[in-house]
């Protein structure tokens, strides 16, 4: 399956500002207003994204706790949890670390990435939330990379229940100064008119915006890809992912999101979210 895709991420409208922020990493004098504390560390290169993965619009949702970890110990621990871990960590062959780890370590000199994979496919958000707390307590990660939503949508979990459990977990993580990256639902043309699937997707969008959490917009990426291919008269893939190339594109986007988040300027706090 070919995956010439543009993966979007939250707050893509601000990508020009981000460009400035990234430029500042390389040459702070050009754009002095941008760049966080971690930028002072060095001049990291943004992780490259393979041509076949298409253009990505970028997020500047910061990962402040990880930026501090980067400054203090040059090490970042990522806890991957939720559905198929391969889909976000990238393919790993012959004992090599997952692609996400390789890409980040290549891009940020001296950075040691440790990925703790606790993916349990089929798990619903409520059960994952319980496990996240345990794994965080045991492993002390800086970032939780959480694939969430698809299983809840398939299992017909009521939207309010889903929203409450995800929000509760995010607030717990925030209270404990753990950064979070949500990897949203998969895109499938067949599910475009599935009311419950779309309701869970909208709910996740809402949560990530209100909680100011970085969300990898997998669905939107697939949608853009589908439209692009349709317009070019090429067959539309059924899903973004589900192939080694697709998984690796996703890992590259996650890597870029992390790199950008590490050096992004902190944003103003969002208005308090309603209690779950």
């Amino acid at each position: 399956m070919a995956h010439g895709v543009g993966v979007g991420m939250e707050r893509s409208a601000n990508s020009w500002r981000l460009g400035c922020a990234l430029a500042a990493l390389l040459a702070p004098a050009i754009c002095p207003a941008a760049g966080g504390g971690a930028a002072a560390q060095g001049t990291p290169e943004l992780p490259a994204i393979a041509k076949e993965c298409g253009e990505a619009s970028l997020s500047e949702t910061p990962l402040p706790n990880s930026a501090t970890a980067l400054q203090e110990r040059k090490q970042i621990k990522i806890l991957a949890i939720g559905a198929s871990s391969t889909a976000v960590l990238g393919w790993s062959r012959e004992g090599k670390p997952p692609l996400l780890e390789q890409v980040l370590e290549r891009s940020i000199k001296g950075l040691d990435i440790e990925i703790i994979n606790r993916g349990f496919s089929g798990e619903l958000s409520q059960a994952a939330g319980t496990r996240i707390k345990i794994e965080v307590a045991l492993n002390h990660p800086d970032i939780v990379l959480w694939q969430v939503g698809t299983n809840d949508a398939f299992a017909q979990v009521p939207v309010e229940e889903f929203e409450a459990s995800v929000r509760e977990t995010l607030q717990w993580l925030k209270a404990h100064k753990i950064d979070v990256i949500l990897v949203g639902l998969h895109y499938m043309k067949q599910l475009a008119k599935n009311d419950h699937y779309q309701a869970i997707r909208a709910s996740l969008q809402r949560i990530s915006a209100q909680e100011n959490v970085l969300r990898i917009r997998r669905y939107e990426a697939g949608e853009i890809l589908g439209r692009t291919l349709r317009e070019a008269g090429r067959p539309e893939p059924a899903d973004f992912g589900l192939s080694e190339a697709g998984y690796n594109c996703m890992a590259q986007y996650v890597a870029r999101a992390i790199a950008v988040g590490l050096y992004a300027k902190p944003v103003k706090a969002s208005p308090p979210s309603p209690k779950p």
Partner: protein
Amino acid sequence: MPRHANAVDFWRGFALVSIFINHIPGIWYERLTHRNLSISDSAELFVFLAGWSLGLLVGSRKEPVTAGRLVVRLGGRALTIYAAQILICSIALAILAATAYVLDNPLLLEWNNAAAFFQDPALTQIGLVLLTHQLGYFDILPLYVVLMLAAPAIALIDKFARPLLVPLSLALYFASLTAPFTAPTWPVSGQWFFNPFTWQAIFVLGFALSRDDGLGAIVRRKMNLIRGIALPLVLIAAVLVWFNWFPDPIRLPEPKLLFLNGKSFLTPMRLLQFLALAAVFSAAYALFAPWVPWLTEFLSILGRNSLNVFCVGSVLSLVGQVIRLVYTGSFVIDTMVVIVGMGLLWLTAWVSEWKDRQTAGD
């Protein structure tokens, strides 16, 4: 002839039904299983009773068994369970592939940890055979295989150094919790969902408590006292679970696994609550069995044929997940899934006994 209904078979059947329902995430009837009021769930019950059954098998005085024969017999049982695991995984992968194809929904190829198999079948097939790659909800039997592989060692320690069995098991349990260590997965890096180094403790306790002497005898003698202590624990646990009043894991002292509520590591909180639950409910069977003979017979026949029923139940749970996906789970659909599922579990048990009866008749 199949044996008459008894408490062990009854509770084993109960565990099988609970596992069948709990393995269909989101199903309405999930809220009726005992995990909603209990820290431990049907997995603990299933493994404990597996150990209990092993104790009955090893402790049977009908025929004196030599150490060599014991090892061969238990090894053969481990092989049977292993073969069952390979078979049901194979069927599960076929169900996922067929459903993905028929529904034109490739997402299903990622369900239940199947993505690795469909994307890298060469390595993942090796992992499946080595039990280092486990499909989601198909992860209890690998634990059972490991426990049955350890069963000859358990039986031999029991035969030649009985007082050491439980202390050794608990030493391994606490070592795994404090170090901590567990079994890794491969080719996808991770951990077994059921840590065999900790879950062996409940299996060994089931084994030891089933015996008429040693720990089993002591517990039986003090059962009233134990139940008196256990009942408040069970009630307190029910309140904690209902209101989700568990301490924040981050604020717990080290080693945290000694204080957490974690299923993968069967933490002490779960183990103790399960033992309390078992002590309280071990009295229940005799009280209600005469009043609900149909239920007693139904669950007992499932429990008598637990491996076959477990295997069919695992596959049916996956089919239930697919049905809920296709027909967008509702109360009516969920009810049909449960009724048909129960019927098929009963049919599996009935056919298993019919086959045994035919064999005995020959």
